[in-house]
């Protein structure tokens, strides 16, 4: 990563690169499930080293949007995707190998999904897929990823116990460590704090803020204040429609352009 080395300790040096071409370009993205539309005509850009927040009530299309970014539509036969998503200037639907695409994108689901493996093997899963076999190398990756996910100190003595035996908050940090083990350039988080206590949520948010200097983060959240705390820019989705995108501060501090956004942010509906 170019920015990280120059940035050093000061995280802000490696903030969003609005001057560079965007990492993700979404054009006219529409998603439907068996003919029932879930997302209509979304256009947006996400820039390198940005935390891009997506807010909106349930059924607004947040999750569908994230799923389209790493082509998880192959999982659900009834999910139809139209329009284009480009990552680093390449349309992801032109990539023949969706597995290679997914291996570059880390995903954190709303409820922590510990694979039925030990803590160690959960984090070593993706490196092993990449062909890392040496124990020492794997050890190093596992420790580094768990440390970055603020979990190492809590689990270093129980790496060989099942990941599912950890507490909910620990499991979610485990899935973050696992996502980081992919060395992704893009991290997608879908309402990651839904099953996590507030203290752990704050710790994860700190982790994300640090990670921003190394990668790009797209984060859907149902907590408006979480977007305010973390996101550089925020998009508001409502009933499958992108209502508004703005610099987070502008949306929250000054008047948003669309009164529905203001209404949602202030909790008048949602």
């Amino acid at each position, binding site marked *: 990563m170019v920015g990280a080395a120059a940035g050093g300790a000061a995280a802000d040096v490696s903030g969003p690169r609005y001057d560079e071409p965007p990492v993700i370009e979404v054009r006219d993205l529409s998603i439907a499930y068996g003919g029932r539309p879930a997302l209509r005509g979304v256009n947006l850009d996400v820039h390198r080293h940005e935390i891009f927040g997506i807010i909106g009530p349930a059924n607004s299309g947040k999750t569908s949007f994230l799923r389209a970014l790493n082509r*998880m539509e192959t*999982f659900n036969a009834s999910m139809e995707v139209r329009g284009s998503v480009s990552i680093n200037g390449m349309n992801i639907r032109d990539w023949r190998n969706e*597995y290679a695409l997914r291996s570059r*994108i880390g995903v954190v*689901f709303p409820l922590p*999904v510990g*694979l039925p493996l030990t803590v160690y093997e959960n984090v070593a*899963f993706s490196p092993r*897929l990449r062909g890392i076999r040496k124990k020492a190398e794997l050890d190093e990756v596992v420790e580094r990823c768990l440390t970055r996910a603020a979990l190492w100190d809590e689990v270093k003595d129980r790496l060989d116990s099942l990941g599912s035996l950890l507490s909910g908050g620990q499991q979610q940090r485990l899935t973050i460590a696992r996502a980081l083990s*992919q060395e992704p350039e893009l991290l997608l988080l879908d309402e990651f704090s839904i099953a996590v206590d507030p203290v752990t949520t704050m710790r994860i948010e700190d982790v994300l803020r640090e990670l921003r200097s190394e990668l790009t983060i797209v984060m859907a959240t149902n907590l408006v204040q979480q977007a305010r705390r973390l996101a550089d820019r925020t998009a508001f989705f409502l009933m499958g429609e992108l209502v508004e995108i703005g610099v987070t501060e502008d949306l929250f501090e000054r008047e948003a352009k669309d009164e529905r956004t203001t209404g949602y942010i202030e909790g008048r509906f949602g």
Partner: protein
Amino acid sequence: MTPPADSAAAATPGAMDRRDAAWYADRIAQALIFVGGVSAIVFIAGIFVFVTREGLDFALGPLGLREFFTSIAWRPTSNTPTYGALALIAGTASVTGFAMLLSVPLSLGAALFIAEFARGKTRETLKILVEMLAAIPSVVWGFVGMSIMNPLIIRVFDVPVGLTVLNAGLILGLMAAPIMTTIAEDALKAVPDTYREAAEALGATRWEVVVKVVIPASRNGLLAAVLLGVGRGFGETMAVLMASGHAINLPTSPFDSVRALTATIAAELGDAPVGSDHYGSLFTLGILLFVVTFLINLAADVVVRGIGRK
């Protein structure tokens, strides 16, 4: 908002102390379920006691256990009867072993395809077909063995007799496969989709997901499926009786005829006078079958628990 009229009454100590219909229904349901659970134990114990009582006197008395396990001479109706069961044990073991060799890979493969790779109509059709296979009566399989496999084996391999280990093993394998497939598929389907999604999100291919996540997560169920198949093969009587040749023989090749423990009991019990040595010897075979089945299940249980702990 005003509370409903009777909630005030329900809150009084008297109402709390009164047993209502739901309370009794709960108790009755508990009792019925308890009876259902215990009855399984009662039946198993009953069968065990019955079989043992009929066979144990003979097994520990006139029958020499050494002869039973080491001799192949099973001549219960001869003037000087001998009760060597080795050939019968070998017959059952060879046929079951051959059947498992065929059906374990076949059914696990089928289950993997149905559960993990087939989609939509293909999947539903296959499931229905497999379930239909499981419903074919064993005498029909035996008929297939006798009238189709037998001439086929004679022609293809140029052997004098087609009712052999090979024939019975093939038939038994095909019989055990549907039930193993169905149970293995259930085990695979019990693995939550979230695991598959999480693993694919990490960049794993479908095959990698199956090998590294789904199979390890369902191995207990898969093992149970295999052991159920073994049990099915072990206990099957009619098809084996018809397809194996029913000849007392220590098999040295798949083209030897054999006789199975179960088939021996089925064929001879009707002719053995109740209480005679012959009768007792057949029940001894029954005890053997029972003990082996019990050991298989026990082993499965231990293995499954052992894996679960790790």
